[in-house]
């Protein structure tokens, strides 16, 4: 749930002024006050109020605007008065059976079509309007708000140039048969691709766990994977608990069409933003008191936007909690292969491997958008231990299947274990280099980052630069960074972080020279902030 916006003084005064007939009614009623209070004697006290009341009702009746009509007459007969009323009346009124006028689009469509007011999306839009380019647009906005990895394309391009024959059409070498990829495929992905993905996931997670292809459902990206899981695990009006700060996209992906609610569970910098079971328990109870049923917990591990890993202990505690409350856990592990630190990533699957516990409540989401830097190809994975979920999810994949030529290409690439090993190691090295460079640069400016070892970004504490220690202050700084420093970073409030001043900065879209420029631009703004505070 987004934090409620502070009410501006203007909006409050508006509600205080009654409009139209209401104001007239007020003026009539006030003089009656004396009469009503019995100061006019018995006759005056009863007769006059009654008479005035009668005339008052007559007045209102004559001036009441006609209702939106129960008669389905043609729209041309409606007066301007009527159409005015229609526009201001509530949506429930419009959807009543007798309303005049042609149908509108659904309420779902009109709410989705509205421009998104989260700084996360606003920033992305601004960059596409004025994107930085070292040669063509050196004063453009530098993108630090998109967690994309551009560091290792050279490796993939090299692989492609050495392996294209096998890639698109099939493995028959010279036989370019489109008959292999053109026809209908199983909507949840080719078995060959599932096998390849199971092997890939195991490899990026350090071979600590193996994945069973028959427990996998493939979809066109992690976005539909998450939505499908929501449809399977929750009914409209149910809720998921989500530790904050979390990826702004969840608000859209998990709620838009499913009708599911997200309840934030606030984590603190003192815990390095690792979820505490106390906070989880509290959130669970509060939600239940509101009469909302909690269906599960959604965690992202490695975390986005912080970039840390959930320790084994925490994973065990989460499992115990889920078991106690009889809810699901969805673990979004999409950054599992983007590790640069020395810590060890522990997947939920690994925990389940070791424990002899009820696995039906655990579901893992994965994809190739981050670890293999292929967001355009749309490859996502639902990995579940629950047979019913797998059956239901499989049926839902018909709305978001992976394109067959893409599956073909990636089967070859992802099964090439030697290439993948080289890729993982090189990727790790390059992310670490970029991370160290960027974090050091921020450090020079007095900006510290949260401890992190994974992801394509760092979680920077710029609270020292904001004038008011509040969401407002943070957004002011964000605005300065966007419009003056011309860099797009994601403010913590867009991620529902309860502590103001934190910003997510993605550095894997930059080159080393760009990092220098970015730090310089931040320095300029930082100096102005220090002067004003």
């Amino acid at each position: 749930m987004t934090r409620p916006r502070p009410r501006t003084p203007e909006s409050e005064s508006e509600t205080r002024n009654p409009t139209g007939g209401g104001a007239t009614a007020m003026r009539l009623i006030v003089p009656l006050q004396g009469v009503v209070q019995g100061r006019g004697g018995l006759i005056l006290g009863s007769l006059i109020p009654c008479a005035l009341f009668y005339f008052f009702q007559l007045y209102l009746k004559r001036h009441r605007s006609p209702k939106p009509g129960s008669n389905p007459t043609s729209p041309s007969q409606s007066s301007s008065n009527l159409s005015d009323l229609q526009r201001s009346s509530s949506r429930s009124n419009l959807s009543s059976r007798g309303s005049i006028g042609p149908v509108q689009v659904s309420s779902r469509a009109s709410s989705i079509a509205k421009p998104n007011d989260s700084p996360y999306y606003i920033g992305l839009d601004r960059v596409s309007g004025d994107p930085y380019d070292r040669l063509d647009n050196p004063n453009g906005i530098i993108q630090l708000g998109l967690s994309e990895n551009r560091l290792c394309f050279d490796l993939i391009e090299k692989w492609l140039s050495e392996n294209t024959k096998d890639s698109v059409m099939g493995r028959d070498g010279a036989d370019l048969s489109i008959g292999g990829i053109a026809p209908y495929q199983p909507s949840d992905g080719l078995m060959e691709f599932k096998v390849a993905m199971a092997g890939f996931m195991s490899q990026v997670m350090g071979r600590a766990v193996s994945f069973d292809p028959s427990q996998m459902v493939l979809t066109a990206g992690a976005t539909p994977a998450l939505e499908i899981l929501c449809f399977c695990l929750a009914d409209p009006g149910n809720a998921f608990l989500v530790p904050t700060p979390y990826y702004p996209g969840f608000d859209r992906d998990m709620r838009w069409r499913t009708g599911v609610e997200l309840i934030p569970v606030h984590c603190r910098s003192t815990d390095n933003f690792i979820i505490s079971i106390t906070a989880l328990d509290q959130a669970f109870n509060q939600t239940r008191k509101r009469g909302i049923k909690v269906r599960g917990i959604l965690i992202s591990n490695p975390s986005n936007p912080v970039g840390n890993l959930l320790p084994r202990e925490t994973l065990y505690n989460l499992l115990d909690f889920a078991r106690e409350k009889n809810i699901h856990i969805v673990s979004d592990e999409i950054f599992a292969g983007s590790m640069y630190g020395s810590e060890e990533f522990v997947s939920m699957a690994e925990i389940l491997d070791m424990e002899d516990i009820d696995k039906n409540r655990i579901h893992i989401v994965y994809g190739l958008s981050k670890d293999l830097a292929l967001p355009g190809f749309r490859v996502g994975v639902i990995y579940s231990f629950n047979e019913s979920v797998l059956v239901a999810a499989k049926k839902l994949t018909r709305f978001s299947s992976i394109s067959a030529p893409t599956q073909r290409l990636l089967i070859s690439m992802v099964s090439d274990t030697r290439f993948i090993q080289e890729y993982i190691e090189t990727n790790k090295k390059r992310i670490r280099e970029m991370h160290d460079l960027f974090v050091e640069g921020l450090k020079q400016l007095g900006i510290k980052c949260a401890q992190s070892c994974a992801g394509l970004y760092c979680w920077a504490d710029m609270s020292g630069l904001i004038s008011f220690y509040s969401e407002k202050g943070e957004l002011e700084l964000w605005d300065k960074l966007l419009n003056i420093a011309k860099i797009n970073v994601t403010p913590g409030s867009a991620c529902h972080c309860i502590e103001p001043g934190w910003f997510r900065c993605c550095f894997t879209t930059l080159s080393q020279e760009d990092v220098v420029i970015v730090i310089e631009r931040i320095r300029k703004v930082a100096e102005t902030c220090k002067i004003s505070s």
Partner: protein
Amino acid sequence: MRHLSTKATCNSHGQDSSYFLGWEEYEKNSYDKVQNPKGIIQMGLAENQLSFDLLESWLEKNPEPAGFKRDGKSIFRELALFQDYHGLPAFKKALVEFMAEIRGNRVSFDPNHMVLTAGATSANETLMFCLAEPGEAFLLPTPYYPGFDRDLKWRTGVEIVPIHCTSSNDFQITETALEAAYYEAQQCNLRVKGVLVTNPSNPLGTTLSRSELNLLISFITTKGIHLISDEIYSGTVFSSPGFVSVMEVLKDRNCDKSEVWDRVHIVYSLSKDLGLPGFRVGAIYSNDDMVVAAATKMSSFGLVSSQTQYLLSALLSDKKFTKNYISENQKRLKNRQNMLVMGLKRAGISCLKSNAGLFCWVNMRHLLRSDTFEAEMELWKKIVYDVRLNISPGSSCHCTEPGWFRVCFANMTEETLDLAIKRLKDFVVEHTANGHSKSNNSSKKSKRKLLPKWVLRLRDRDHEPDER
């Protein structure tokens, strides 16, 4: 066991309909010329496999797009990162031009009004999300594609109310039927949000006539509702009267700037016309800006792979190729359809006269034991298990009259089609000889009983022209 959502546990996805059961049988015992010559021949899958060679030769002559290259340069990086839900501009442009070409360039489309989705399945569902609230309804003429029961209803909560069409007028949509359906919806307390038609029709294989389209436009104007025209088979029209798109009729009525213009939406896909269902390419075309805006954002849940978009943008931009492909593909479909129609005729089975699609709407009413759906099911089971052909019974398409079946012809070789026709013919002969079907003439029946079966078969064979 943890609770799952009601959606996950309910059965409303229509997966149990006979349409899907036939498929399951086929999976267990698939025909293969060499390895399983007695297996079930798949005639329930509307796939176009007739023109792969054209696609393959194009790919061979144009290796760059498949290799992520443009003008010799690698554009892999841009494609790998491209996940903009507005779609690849070059692809959308090529797609709208292809759509216009199919319509004889009598209408044109604006790429900014197009939304790309992972297949028409996703496009139809997304439109439902955009146009209707849970519990509201869309009217669909019967018979209709069984998948709609799943695609339009499952996650959206929208209801389908049928518009009953009958063979008395070749299943055309009438004003009476439209009004009756609208009334029926109101009786059930369902607010009707629009009408969805498939043009050319699945399973009928016919194009909507101009008068039907005019009727629909007048109907939605009066009622103030939407019209969705699923034109996924528009490129498969192979004979007269030719394809008339609803956009064309709107233009002719000078409705371009009117209110109703915003309420007509088209769904398209490359799964049937290009025979590429595995590629997952679908599109929504709408003149309503809000629908386009909402659908664009919703398409995040089913984007088309950038690799595929790029490859197809190159293919469809090759105008020489598309012109040749469209006409050649139509020619081949026409021949195939003719083969099936003639073959069925020789078996004493007639079809609805069709000019499009990858299937025929076959009339087997005379083979039913009684004019009931139970009898239809009985016949269908015989055809699946004994004749070993997977065809789709009319009841799964919500047809109001028992005895109609959809039979596909474009997803197999000529040889296989021949075999299927032969099997069916043998079945019909045996069936009628055994007196299982309703006979029109009781005297004919008694005459038949006088002659032994082998003579009857011999007599029928004499009437056959050479089959190959």
